[in-house]
Structure formats: C-alpha cells, structure tokens
C-alpha cells in the first residue's frame, strides 16, 4: 500500500503508526490532535522519553522507531 521509502514506522502512545518520512514533530502532532479535536496548545510531547520543547517541534525530524508520547492536561486535585 505504501512505498517503503516514503514512510517510516513510529510509535505514538504505544500504537504503531506509519508516517511520511519527511514528517516533522509539528506535522505529526497537528495531525493527531486535529483528528481528535484536541487543542494543540494544550499538549506536550516526549520523544524517546525526552520532553521536546515546543520551540523545537517545527524543525525536529522524525526517525524510524521514534517513540512519541503525547500528553494533555486532565482534571485533577
């Protein structure tokens, strides 16, 4: 279905996903938040267990095997 050279496999919150090989972190996050009606200004992301500052999302490339963890705020005490 996909051409191998154009897509890479990553994990997003423990689900395996194929994303365009030229994706940036920003583009991945936009796609996943928009699909689910989540406010992108209200999330944070860790890649391979390192928190990635928002200022670096645009320039950060994605690599095969990257492990994305997307977090949001929820109600709590």
């Amino acid at each position, binding site marked *: 279905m996909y051409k191998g050279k154009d897509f890479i496999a990553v994990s*997003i*919150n423990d*689900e395996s996903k194929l994303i365009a090989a030229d994706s940036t972190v920003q583009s991945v996050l936009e796609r*996943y938040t928009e699909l*689910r*009606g*989540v*406010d992108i200004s*209200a*999330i*944070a*992301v*860790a890649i391979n*267990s390192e*928190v*990635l*500052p*928002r200022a670096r999302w645009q320039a950060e490339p994605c690599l095969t095997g990257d492990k994305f*963890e*997307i*977090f*949001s*705020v*929820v*109600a*709590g*005490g």
Partner: protein
Amino acid sequence: MLKIGDYQFESRLFTGTGKFAAPQTMLAAIAASKSQLVTLAVKRLDLNTGSDNILQPLRDSGVKLLPNTAGARNVKEAVFAAHLAREMLGTDWVKLEIHPDPKYLMPDPIETLAAAKILCEQGFTVLPYVHADPVLCRRLEEVGCAAVMPLGSPIGSNQGLATETFLKIIIEQANVPVIVDAGIGAPSQATHAMELGADAVLVNTAIASSAEPVTMGRCFAQAVDTGRQAYLAGLGAVSQQAQHTSPLTGFLND
C-alpha cells in the same frame, strides 16, 4: 495578600479540578469559590477518546494553573511530569506529588525531597504535597520550595485535620506559606485550618463530591475567609477552668 513565589493571591482557598460530574459544574464551582489557583493533572492522551479540553475555559477564567505530578512513583517520573507540564501550560509552577501507594496515596518523603531539590535547581516554583512532617517541611524549605503542602488526612477521605498537632508545629516553624492540602471535608475544617494559622487550604473532593458543588464552593470561600480573619483577630486562650464573663460581686449580696 498571600504571596507565593512572585505571585500574589487575594483568595486563600485553592481548588482542585478533579471528580466533578461535568466541566461546566467544575467551572461554576471554582467561580463560586473565588479560588485563584487550581490544580490540574498531566496524562497521556488517549488517542481513541481525545481529551476533555478543560484548559481553555480555565485559562479564560483567569485562574492561575498549578499542574501536579500525580501518578509519578519516583523522582524520575516526577521530574519528567514537571517538564511536560511546563511545556504544556507554560508555567514553571508545579505541585510535586509522589505517592506510589494506591490505597492511602501517602506521599513518599524521600523521593519528594530529592525531586524537590532537582526541580528547584532547575528553576521550578515547587509546592510539594507531603505528610504533616515538620522535619520534612523544613528540609523542603531549605532546598528552595516556595511553599509546603502538608496533608490533613488521606486524599479524598474527607476526614479533616487528623494531623492537627503536627500542622501546628509546621505552621510555627515555616518561613514559606503552609497550604493544608488533602482530607479537608467540610467548610468548618477549612475554617479550623485557617484559625491554626495556615496560609491557605486546597480543597477538591469536598466541593466536587457535594450534591451542590457550586453552593459548597461558596461555603468554602466564606469558611476560609472567616478562619483567616479569626486567626488575624487572635483567638482567646483556652483554659480548663471557667472564666466568668459577667461580674460576680456587688449585685445580690452587697
């Protein structure tokens, strides 16, 4: 005015956002409570259900947001949660809580002190949730915490100030604000904490689990205000023996 870090609060009632039946109820109850600081938690986004998007209405309401590290079981997880929260909310304030025990949610003092030291060194404004341990509270102050948040009784238990004796010692010794957190189940208990000299209280379950959270939020606002004013006015001394309030001579027998 209550000053914590570089921020001033008119209200000495802080509120949590958990356990409310609906986001609108939570927002209305917080408004009624006049709270200016509310806690939030950080959680991995569920890709199937999305998130409840409570952040924007809270931001719009003008309250200061205090993310917590609930769910962290050790130093590493708590520091990670604090960094996530900072990216997410744009605040370096964090309510540090590390309670690996799911039954009583007792805060782990050793992990908490170590995490507090790291986060303070990294420039966070750290408000640690701890047991009512005067020695630990001093140690947390020494590593740079902006306040301490000793518990009254277990989280969500509504048991009130089971730790009163130790809260008094903490309040006497502290050079940073003391916020009594956890276990306050009734407005009268919040009043009592404030009468003891607490700088603020944090209430969540007692408001959220009331049949009428908005009314209860208002009750807590009044209770905290009353307790604070009573503390400032100065409570009378307690004595074992009766002390008459009317003159006992010169009326019937002279």
